[in-house]
């Protein structure tokens, strides 16, 4: 694939639990009663996309995939075969360990959101002589996606991919697109038009290869803060606009969010 020419080394710092919580929220399902088959299928789909994009995903994603498969198969067992002597409670539910883990994690995710609010607030507070606890230079701003969650982007990308024309056998047009080229194209478009809807970016694209290269270009530009992505509603369409590389130093890596219109899945 042409994306090899411009390797996007995007380390994914979200873990499998993030992805699961994202899917649970997106589908508006009860965290205590996860429709395991549906969620597993979706999880595998996202994992497949991440692997196709050759993102630097952690081994934990694969482990979680195996766990989900196992839970799914255990759910298929007739009830009689599962510890008949015990009373029916959540302890029998093969999903339970996972639910517990998700609930525990979600707790901290929620707190993180509140810490972030405080952080933004503190950005506006200065001590005497301009000292600001939040304004220290960091040498390594880290890999940072702005504004929208990586899974939001993958989700949008999946939609685009579904609508794409099927790959034709023996197609040789593949080499026409590279990530490097698409980076130029995306930047030009965004700078000329001011902003563009993610869903429209791929409108006239003919091949999957072009779509994939363009998506990787978007990821790379987000990482470099040359563009930013904003989402109006949860799981709504994503707006790509010119970024401001000087606006903020973001410490750590993975998806962050901006002051306005920030969305976390």
């Amino acid at each position, binding site marked *: 694939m042409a994306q090899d020419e411009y390797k996007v080394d995007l380390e994914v*710092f*979200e*873990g*499998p*639990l993030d992805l699961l919580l994202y899917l649970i929220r997106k589908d508006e399902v009860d*965290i*205590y009663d996860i429709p395991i088959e549906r969620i597993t299928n979706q999880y595998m789909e996202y994992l497949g996309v991440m692997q196709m994009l050759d993102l630097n995903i*952690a081994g*934990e994603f694969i482990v*979680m995939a195996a766990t989900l498969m196992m839970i799914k198969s255990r759910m298929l067992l007739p009830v009689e075969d599962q510890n008949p002597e015990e009373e029916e*409670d*959540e*302890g029998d539910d093969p999903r*339970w360990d996972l639910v*517990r*883990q998700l*609930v*525990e*994690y*979600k*707790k*901290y995710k929620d*707190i*993180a*959101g*509140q*810490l*972030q609010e*405080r*952080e933004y*607030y*503190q*950005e*506006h*507070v*200065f*001590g*005497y*002589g*301009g000292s*600001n*606890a939040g*304004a*220290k*230079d*960091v040498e390594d701003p*880290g890999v*940072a996606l702005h504004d929208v969650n990586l899974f939001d982007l993958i989700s949008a990308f999946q939609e685009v991919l579904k609508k794409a024309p099927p790959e034709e056998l023996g197609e040789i047009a593949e080499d026409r697109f590279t990530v490097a080229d698409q980076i130029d194209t995306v930047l030009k478009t965004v700078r000329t038009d001011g902003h563009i809807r993610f869903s429209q970016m791929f409108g006239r694209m003919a091949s999957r290869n072009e779509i994939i290269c363009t998506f990787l270009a978007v990821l790379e530009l987000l990482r470099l803060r040359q563009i930013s992505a904003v989402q109006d509603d949860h799981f709504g369409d994503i707006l790509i606009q010119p970024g401001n590389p*000087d*606006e*903020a*130093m*973001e*410490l*750590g*890596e*993975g*998806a*962050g969010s901006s002051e306005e219109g920030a969305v*976390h899945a």
Partner: protein
Amino acid sequence: MHDAMRLPALREIIGALIFGANRPITARELRQCLQEVASEDSEVAVFAEASIKDIEREIRALHDELQLRETGFGIYEVSGGWRLQSNVSCGRWLKNLLKVKPQRLSQPALETMAIIAYRQPISKAEIETIRGVGVSHVIKQLMEVQLVKIVGRSELPGRPFLYGTTSRFLEHFGLKSLQDLEQIGPRVFTRKMQADTGETDQTEDDASSDNQDDVVEETDKSVVSDNEKGQVDESA
């Protein structure tokens, strides 16, 4: 400049000290300073008598005055001490004037920060169990910007480092003390307040903290007890 000879009021001294300290300063430190200067110079010996209460009263009076007069800055309690800081409503002008780039934590960094703040002292492995993904890199960065520090070592095999928050953490998030965390996530915090030396102790508090999570109805109780079991297994 004969003004230098005039004996200032206690309030003025305190105001000048908070103004000049360049860091959050406690009433205790203020008293110590008053006493030290008093011991050097009998002329100002009277200030040695100021109690913590007196000092705090003056701080509050100063706070109220600055608030009332709309000066654009005020006295606030941060990271265990008092300091002057600009009003948040004037932030955008200062950001423009000083051309500062605010330092923002990414989502994974914030989550790791939250886990460390509420569960400290905590090992990397425990954080990773909660987050479900490696955190070495994130911890390293949080330590580099001095929001997190090593606070000790666990007694567990391998004696892993235990991490906790710094005073800079309090400043960065504008917290008076770790107690402030209680307002953000009260139930989670109770766990931490109770003996957090033994791993097993944590399970009980898990029970209370999990309750706050939405979606939960009557099933909660059994859910929680199972939770305890799972927790014990994991940490053992």
